[in-house]
């Protein structure tokens, strides 16, 4: 019972060290751009691939499930757009990123911990938590919304391509559907969730990496734990944010 509370306390204490002013601005900017490249741009491929196919599958499933002639075929485009923007892109892609980016952050910092590189930073008088975790958090919060917008766009394109090739719905109907009753607030909702999930991925993974002790086995365990706990929190906060923003 006390362990989760103790872990939460350790997390809060670490975050107090993370969210301080960087000791050297120039080094922070260098790290930030490096992390944007490593955590964000390096994920474009997987995000694009999953989004295209996800959008295509949603569109095909919706088209096959519309049996009634009373329902217009433009509903395929409408449903694909709503599903992708409201849930698939912000939540599913964030879960994918929790696996890819989260494990990378935890294993990188964990390896630095067990090979005494973090101790070396501390000995020099560097706030290692701030130096290592803060740029990753800022980079994730900045780049993940870009990835999610790209994912939304590619998801809708994927649905469109599936409809064109399968000839289940005409291009006109699909485009009419994706333009139907569009509310910009849904984008705001999706990006708010994305920023929150990005923060969770970077801080939780950073936390588990930073407190790794032992050797290679423990680095692997920290990495797994980071992905599992990040995913659980993403699912929990998805419900909370949905209730707050749409309820």
């Amino acid at each position, binding site marked *: 019972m006390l362990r989760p509370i103790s872990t939460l306390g350790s997390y809060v204490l670490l975050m107090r060290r993370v969210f301080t002013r960087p000791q050297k601005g*120039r080094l922070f900017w260098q790290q930030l751009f490096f992390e944007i490249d490593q955590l964000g741009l390096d994920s474009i491929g997987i995000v694009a691939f999953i989004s295209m196919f996800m959008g295509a599958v949603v569109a095909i499933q919706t088209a096959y499930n519309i049996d009634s002639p009373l329902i217009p075929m433009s509903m395929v485009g409408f449903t694909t757009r709503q599903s992708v923007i409201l849930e698939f892109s912000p939540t599913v892609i964030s879960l994918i990123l929790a696996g890819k980016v989260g494990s990378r952050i935890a294993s990188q910092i964990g390896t630095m911990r067990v090979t005494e*590189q973090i101790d*070396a930073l501390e*000995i*020099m*008088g560097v706030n290692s938590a701030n130096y290592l975790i803060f740029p990753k958090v800022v980079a994730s919060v900045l780049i993940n919304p870009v990835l999610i917008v790209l994912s939304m766009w590619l998801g809708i394109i994927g649905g469109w391509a599936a409809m064109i090739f399968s000839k289940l719905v005409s291009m006109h109907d699909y485009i009419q559907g994706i333009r139907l009753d569009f509310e910009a607030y849904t984008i705001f909702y999706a990006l708010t969730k994305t920023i929150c999930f990005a923060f969770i991925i970077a801080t939780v993974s950073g936390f588990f990496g930073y407190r790794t002790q032992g050797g290679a086995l423990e680095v692997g365990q920290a990495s797994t734990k980071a992905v599992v706990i990040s995913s659980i929190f993403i699912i929990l906060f998805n419900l909370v944010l949905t209730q707050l923003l749409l309820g």
Partner: protein
Amino acid sequence: MIEARNINKYFGENHVLRDVSCKFHPGKTNLIIGQSGSGKTVLMKCLVGLFEVDNGQILYDERNFSAMSIDQRKEIRQELGMLFQGAALFDSMNVQENVMFPLNMFTRETMEEKLDRVNFVLKRVNLENINKLMPSELSGGMKKRVAIARAIVMNPKYLFCDEPNSGLDPQTSNVIDLLIQELTYEYGITTIVNTHDMNSVLSIGDSIEFIYQGQIWWSGNKKDILHMGNKELNDFVFGTELTKRLRK
């Protein structure tokens, strides 16, 4: 001078350091020796502040390090360098970036000045033209020398070396030992070396603290150590087949 006054350290029920008091003098290579698990590394980590002592004081030239806050310690930390057992070079940086890191972090020197300083310290540790190599491309001895270069690049007053010879062959070990000693004498650094290598003890041990079961069991120098009647010390000093034969 660095002084430990009656320091104690517990890990749960395990009393690892028991009332340890000792002094480490400037311009000398001060050795902490003892068997594995005797508390050497814990003592060194307490001295540099990686572990907090449960009671007692650590003084850096009369400045009470153990009573300082993290921010206050930064000033002292910039005066110390440390060579870790595994070198602890940053994997993502090449040799030049590793050595230049403290200069980038704490100085406002121009790139040219920093590069001059990096090349100077690399030359001092007998490494040249390896600036662009990554740590994974270096041998064990080269990694240790790069780590020494990084440790001395800020002209430290205090140098800590944790098992500098671990994983090295005897000849390379000797090179590293002599390098540490030369730097200590040349710059008047207070150097503390944690080791259980008897070759190091006999070649660079200006001042030696033998730690046994978390206590300072014997203090002296490399001249005295072979002629003491202390059983635990003799068991340690003459623990290898080679030293036993030499003793006979």
